[in-house]
């Protein structure tokens, strides 16, 4: 980097001005899968949280990942989002994007959104404002000070509100929403950034049966446009949404297939379902 570029970058960092970062390059999914995890191993003090994990997620797919506690589900999410670095193996987003060479914000920018277990919305902002904050686009001080939300962004907010079915609460404070509604709002905030791959960690924990049902509809409606990976313990919920289920055990894939195949799979029954 020459001096002029260095100064300009420094200036932009401090003053928050300058051209917005370009849209992330398109993710090449021409061979089918959008996510390639190959031979990923992560160990913590000798304990192998992931042990030569190999997993592929197809573009537009809705995949459920199940497994007993300590099977490595959360660690896998951490590796994909850049929070944890694997000891060996490779992780690619599409054909051309190497996730292991990127930082957390870069990965988020490239189009991988993650919803954490505990909902964290801005409780003192309205539902609309929460989505507005999360909208993709220029986020410098001057842009937000001088320009209101563009018409297309506004339309996107409306369409996301419709998707997550919170139109009626758009002017309500997010803090006044129910637990389930907060979860949906958070999914909505992810959608505002238009991610290609959504990682959803235990979306129905603590929800009422009606909320669980609506969450299932929501996630099903997202598949196709987005690739969705759901980690969940609730087997009834998994059964209601999953076409394809991956069972993790001791840091690697034990079996993969439909939920019925999994429930009759002898090894799976032994380690997990037979409990």
């Amino acid at each position, binding site marked *: 980097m020459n001096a002029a570029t260095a100064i300009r970058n420094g200036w932009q960092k401090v003053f928050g001005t300058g051209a917005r970062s370009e849209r992330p390059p398109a993710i090449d999914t021409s061979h089918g899968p959008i996510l390639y995890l190959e031979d990923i191993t992560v160990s913590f003090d000798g304990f192998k949280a992931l042990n030569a994990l190999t997993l592929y997620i197809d573009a537009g797919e809705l995949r459920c990942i199940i497994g007993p506690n300590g099977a490595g589900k959360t660690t896998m999410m951490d590796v994909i989002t850049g929070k944890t670095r694997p000891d060996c193996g490779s992780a690619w987003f599409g054909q051309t994007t190497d996730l292991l060479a990127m930082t957390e*914000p870069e990965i*988020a920018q490239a189009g991988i959104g993650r919803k954490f277990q505990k909902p964290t919305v*801005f409780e003192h*902002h309205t539902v609309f404002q929460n989505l507005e904050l*999360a909208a993709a686009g220029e986020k410098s001080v001057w842009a*937000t*000070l*001088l320009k209101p939300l563009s018409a297309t962004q506004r339309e996107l907010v409306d369409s996301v509100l419709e998707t997550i079915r919170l139109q009626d609460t758009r*002017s309500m*404070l997010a803090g006044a929403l129910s637990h389930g509604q907060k979860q949906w709002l958070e999914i909505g905030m992810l959608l505002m950034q238009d991610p290609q791959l959504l990682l959803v960690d235990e979306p129905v924990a603590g929800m009422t049966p009606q909320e669980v049902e609506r969450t299932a509809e929501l996630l099903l409606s997202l598949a196709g446009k987005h690739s969705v990976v759901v980690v969940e313990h609730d087997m009834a919920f998994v059964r209601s949404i999953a076409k394809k289920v991956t069972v993790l055990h001791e840091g690697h894939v034990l079996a993969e297939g439909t939920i019925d195949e999994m429930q009759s799979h002898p090894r799976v029954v032994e380690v997990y379902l037979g409990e």
Partner: protein
Amino acid sequence: MRSNTLFSVLLGDRGTKIFFAVLLITTAIAPLLHLAMPEGSALHLSSYTMTLIGKYMTYALLAIAVDLVWGYCGILSLGHAAFFALGGYAMGMYLMRQIGPRGVYGHPVLPDFMVFLNWTELPWFWYGFDMFWFAALMVMFVPGVLAFAFGWLAFRSRVTGVYLSIITQALTYALMLAFFRNNMGFGGNNGLTDFKEILGFDMHSSATRIALFVASAVALALGYIACKYIAHSRAGRVIQAVRDAESRTRFIGYRVESYKLWIFAFSAVLAGIAGALYVPQVGIINPSEFQPINSIEIVIWVAVGGRGTLYGAVAGAVLVNYAKTYFTAAMPEFWLYALGAMFVFVTLFLPRGVVGLGDRFLKKPERVAEAVPA
């Protein structure tokens, strides 16, 4: 759909409407009562009282500056009196140079205290202060640049919460010690005083006092409008998000440091302007304005009034200072106890301040979020 024009934003909440109504009436009536009513009449407003109200207005401007960084952005600055004092010193330097050869020692250029110190030349940093436009620029520039440099170092290193509050206290304390030194060239512990004229007008005439009074009112109104605009822009919602969940805001892609930095610097500029209007009305600026306790008092004004509303800050500044004026005259030894008691009471029983109390009795809660966490 919420319209976002400035006008609708300003008239959007009741507190703001009341604020502008009171400000307008005060600004119109006070000079009238001062000039038109004969002295001795019950309706006559003494120049002391009018200057006092003018002083409260500059305090109110200082309070909304603090409310913007604390109430909206969650940065608890305990050093805003430093920016206020720096603005005041810049104005004081202009007023000193206006004295010209009419000082006690009659030196054509040097202010009295420099002659007293046997200085023969004007220090370089006093150049330009004989021109009003230059001084006016410095009133904003000096606090703004200091806040920017300070904020850059602090926010980039992710200093937050109580640690940031402590270093802002250190900042104002360091400046106080520096300004107490005679060698600094700002008049030492006597500060700058004995002003004669501003822009060629006699500082002690009624007309000048009224002009300063009106200028303070206008500055307060414009400062309020600017803060209101920022608070209701998208940037305003980002800074409130920073206040409530800083790391989450960073996670969705905002450069939290830039937002804090700009808001802090802007607020310092407002504080500087307030200081510059304060000094000609009280007639003196000295290093005691940098005292750490002063900055803490400003935060108490805002807390008493109710933070995160702007008009609450104005109400708090006026209420607390009126109480201060009363107490320090009637029973001076009790003032600090009263101040402390007020702060404890408000923190325990009125987390949203006096205006929060008003809202509770008068109306259902606001539909759109502006409240701060209780």
